[in-house]
C-alpha cells in the first residue's frame, strides 16, 4: 500500500506530457572580446569605451525571460593563458533581466571595475558572461537556452597618474565584418586567387554607427593576433600571402563597404597538402581607443 502511494505521488509529479517539441534559442554578436591595457582602480563601461554592448536576440517563436550574469570559466574554457577573474563582482551590467518577445533583443552595458591593487598589474583575466533564459513551468522537463560570451582583459603593467580618467571614445567595436569565416579548398600555390570569385563570398565591413568612420584592414597570423588556432589548421606561414584591394577606407554612417581579398601562396612544395588559417583584422583608426573585429580565412593547399 505504501509503495502504491509513492508511485501515485511521483506519477503526479512527472506525467505532464508536454505538447510537441518546439525549437527555441538565442544569438549574440559578442562571442569573445579582448580588452587590453585597463588600469587598476578604474571602472570601464565597454559601451562608453568602444561602443561595445552585449546584445542578445531571442530567436525563439515564443517569449522568454532572460538573465545575464558573470560566471567563472571552467578550466577547459580558459584561453590565451588567462586566469579566472579574482571576483565576479568586478563585472556588472546596466541591466541584467529582460522579458523578450520572439525576435526581440536585450541590450546591456558591461562594466568592468578593477580594484586599486598593484598585485593585478600586468595580469590577464577571463570571465564568462552567461546570458540565459529561465525556462518555464508547466511540469516535466523544459529546455532553456544560454550563451557564454568570453571576456578576456589585460591590466596595464604600470599604473596611470592620479589624474587618469578612463577614456570615453567613439571608437566602435560594434561594427561588423562578414563573413566571419571564409574557406578555400584545393588552393594551388603560385596562383593568385580572387577570393570572391573563387568562393562567392565577399568581404564586407558595415558601419552601423551614427558617424563616418575610418577603418584599417590587416592580414595577420594567429601568432601575431589575439585569435586562437582552429583545430585541424595551422597558422598562416606569412600574413602577406593574404592581400586586400584597399587597406584603409572611410565608411559613411549606416553604410557598408566591399573589399576584394586575394590569396597568393608562393610556389613552394612545403605548403602542399596543408591547411592554414589567416586572421583578417579590421579596426578603427585615429581614435583614442582602438576598436577591432576579427574574421578568419581558411586555405587548404592542394
Amino acid at each position, binding site marked *: 500500500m505504501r509503495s502504491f502511494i509513492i508511485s501515485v505521488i511521483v506519477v503526479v509529479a512527472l506525467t505532464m506530457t*508536454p505538447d510537441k*517539441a518546439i525549437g527555441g534559442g538565442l544569438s549574440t554578436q559578442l562571442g569573445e572580446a*579582448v580588452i587590453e591595457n585597463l588600469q587598476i582602480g578604474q571602472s570601464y563601461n565597454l559601451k562608453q569605451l568602444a561602443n561595445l554592448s552585449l546584445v542578445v536576440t531571442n530567436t525563439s517563436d515564443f517569449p522568454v525571460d532572460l538573465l545575464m550574469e558573470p560566471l567563472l570559466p571552467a578550466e577547459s574554457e580558459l584561453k590565451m593563458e588567462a586566469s579566472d577573474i579574482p571576483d565576479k563582482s568586478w563585472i556588472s551590467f546596466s541591466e541584467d533581466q529582460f522579458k523578450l518577445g520572439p525576435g526581440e533583443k536585450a541590450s546591456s552595458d558591461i562594466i568592468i571595475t578593477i580594484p586599486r591593487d598593484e598585485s593585478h598589474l600586468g595580469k590577464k583575466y577571463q570571465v564568462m558572461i552567461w546570458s540565459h533564459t529561465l525556462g518555464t513551468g508547466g511540469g516535466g522537463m523544459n529546455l532553456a537556452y544560454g550563451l557564454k560570451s568570453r571576456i578576456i582583459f589585460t591590466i596595464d603593467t604600470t599604473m596611470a597618474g592620479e589624474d587618469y580618467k578612463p577614456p570615453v571614445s567613439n571608437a566602435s567595436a560594434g561594427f561588423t565584418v562578414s563573413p566571419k569565416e571564409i574557406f578555400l579548398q584545393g588552393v594551388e600555390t603560385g596562383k593568385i586567387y580572387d577570393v570572391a570569385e573563387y568562393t562567392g563570398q565577399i568581404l564586407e565591413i558595415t558601419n552601423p554607427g551614427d558617424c563616418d568612420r575610418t577603418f584599417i584592414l590587416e592580414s595577420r597570423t594567429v601568432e601575431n593576433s589575439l585569435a586562437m588556432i582552429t583545430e585541424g589548421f595551422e597558422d598562416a606561414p606569412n600574413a602577406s600571402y593574404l592581400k586586400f584591394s584597399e587597406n584603409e577606407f572611410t565608411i559613411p554612417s549606416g553604410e557598408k563597404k566591399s573589399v576584394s581579398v586575394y590569396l597568393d601562396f608562393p610556389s613552394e612544395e612545403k605548403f602542399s597538402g596543408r591547411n592554414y588559417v589567416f586572421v583578417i583584422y579590421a579596426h578603427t583608426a585615429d581614435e583614442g581607443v582602438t576598436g577591432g573585429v576579427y574574421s578568419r580565412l581558411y586555405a587548404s593547399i592542394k
Partner: protein
Amino acid sequence: MEKLKLSIYAGTLFFLALVFFTSVGQAANPATINVTVTIQNLSVTATGPIAFGTVTASSATVASDSSHVVNDGNVTETYSLNLTNPGGWTAVQAAPAAEQYCLSAMFNATLPDTADYAYTDHALSTTPTPCSGSKFAGDQTGLSVATSGIRYLWFKFEAPSSTVVTTEQTIVVTVTAAAG
C-alpha cells in the same frame, strides 16, 4: 668642491626620485586601450520540452525523444549543460535517495540504452558544465560543434526513492553555447 658635492647630492636625489617613481608603477602615459571582438555571431537552437511519460518511485526512464541542438552561429561551438532544481527535489550525481533525483544527458545519434549512462560523465548539476570528449558524450559530443552541426541530446530520469511532494514539478535544463 662644495658645489660639486651638492650637485652630486642633488643628482642622487633626482635619481632616487626616479627610482621611487618607477617602483610604484605610475606612468604619465598609460598604454592605449584596444578592444577587439575576436568572435562574432554565437547562436544556438534546441528543441524541447522533453516528455518522460509516467514514472514511478525509484525507476529510471530514458525519454524516447531527443532534443535537437543546432549550432546556427558562424563559429565552432562547445556546449555546456546544467539544470535548475524544482522546489521539492535536489539533483544528485549518484543513485537518488528520498527527495533526490538524477537527470543525465547524452549526445548520441540514436536512443541510448539506460545502461549507457554513467553518473560521472552524464549526470547534470546546477553548474553549467562544458562538454568534453567524455562529458555528456555518447557517439556524439557537444565539444567543438561545427557551424550548422546538429546534435541529438537524450535524457535519463532517475526518480526519488520516495517523496512527499504532491505538487507538479518542473526541471529546466539549460543548453549553453560558447565559442570554441
